[in-house]
């Protein structure tokens, strides 16, 4: 059964729509055939491995590299997945506050798939490593470009999910980043004030 579904290549539609048509991606997730949730976690698995390999290409490695791509990769994958679940939860929370119906399971799947462009950092940077043409700069530059592409997929997916305009979808998308930034700012500010009050 599973093998038959694998051979049908229907599962590739999630990845295909992620790249070519993000709105169709959500529609495909909504169909729930094949089930997208667990499959979506292959994306952070791929991107975490690609991230480790890309960063390793930028400098000379010791034999610790083998630990990084085995145990380290699992650690990064778990951490990335955790961040995705938290950010998806925050996005879903804001979507509900804006009067939409919550659907955390689909939101997690959507955010997972939206990370797929980040996997392309490896072949892109590898080309510049081989050419020895500013690989570090290109890594930073293309990381930014791929993040924007990834954000674009997520925003269009959220827009399709809740039938929202792009502005509100953007707001939902950036909410976790805003929330984290503001929280950290106040945490650091209060920590500094407390420390200085104690010392002075």
């Amino acid at each position, binding site marked *: 059964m599973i093998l038959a579904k694998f051979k049908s290549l229907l599962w*590739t539609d999630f*990845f*295909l729509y992620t790249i*070519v048509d993000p709105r169709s991606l959500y529609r495909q997730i909504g169909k729930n055939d094949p089930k997208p949730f667990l499959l979506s976690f292959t994306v952070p698995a791929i991107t975490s491995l690609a991230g480790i390999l*890309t960063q390793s290409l930028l400098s000379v490695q010791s034999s610790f590299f083998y630990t990084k*791509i085995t145990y380290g990769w699992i650690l990064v994958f778990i951490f990335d997945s955790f961040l995705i679940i938290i950010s998806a939860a925050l996005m879903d929370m804001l979507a509900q506050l804006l009067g939409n119906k919550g659907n955390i399971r689909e939101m997690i799947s959507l955010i997972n798939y939206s990370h797929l462009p980040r996997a392309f950092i*490896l072949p892109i940077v590898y080309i510049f490593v081989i050419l020895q043409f500013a690989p570090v700069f290109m890594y930073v530059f293309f990381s930014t470009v791929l993040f924007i592409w990834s954000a674009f997929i997520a925003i269009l997916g959220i827009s399709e999910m809740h039938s929202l305009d792009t502005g509100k979808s953007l707001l939902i998308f950036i909410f976790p980043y805003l929330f984290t930034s503001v929280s950290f700012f106040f945490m650091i500010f209060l920590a500094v004030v407390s420390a200085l009050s104690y010392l002075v």
Partner: protein
Amino acid sequence: MDRNRKILISILSMLVFTAVIAIVHISMNLNEQTAVTLSMKTPQFGAGVAIVRIEGPIGFSVDRSPLHLARGSEAVIKRLNELEKNSNIRAVIVRINSPGGTVAATQEIYNKLWKLRKKNIQLIASMGEIAASGGYYVASACNYIMANQGTITGSIGVIAAAPNLKGLFERFGIKMNVIKSGKFKDIMSSHRDMRDDERELLQQLIDLSYNRFLKDIALGRNMNESDIRPYADGRVMTGETALQCKLIDGIGTFEDSVYKAKELAGLASDAPVYEEEKSPIEEILFSMETLFYGRNILKEQFNMDDYYRLEYRLVP
């Protein structure tokens, strides 16, 4: 649709292929494994030896620490106070690497050490590169003094110095208007010659401090003042000469001092040694202090306050 799926499969295969190639590429360029040494400190318990370090010129901290961290002689006394309260400390090694310092600051450390000595805490002075004048004064409070063969020590004496800039003032036509309540109020002024009565007054002051120095050394070393006086003319000497003059008890390294401290305190050879350590937070605060602590270059180069100090200090 099938064509698009196959294209996607190709893209994913390309990603996998790139990953494999990248792993091979990195493996071929692996550097030799660098040995990573992790220094793990195990907590120490029980009766042991503590270390106190006196480094640089001895003096009170003139400027208040912005972060309320003890500096100068106050930091040494603070450390000694902590050790005094710690019942595990049976001996203290006073590691000295100092050319001396101001009279009052040196005496404060001496008196504090003497208090510890009275409490039957064994004190061992370990002299480093230099332990002269006030550095030796502090060491004399200890039960046992150990120095290296090449340690510079001695310089028993008191000094006060101020430049006479009268000629310079006259050359530039600078005149000082001085209104004073007594004839000695502007003693050691740099714009005029020193009067005889002023010189006499300062000499008395110097002699008093010198005599106190001699008395304290004699007390600490359990010697007669008359035995010390021949060498207490400000002369510097090496550790070996100091041993011959009985100003120290033995020649040895810092490590030897640790063994000696354990021996005098009746501790086992593997008894813990409590090094003076700052917590990571204190290290951060100390490094932060340099950011807050504005330095006035002019003040450092020409600080008039320095000329009104009596010092037990080796002045080269």
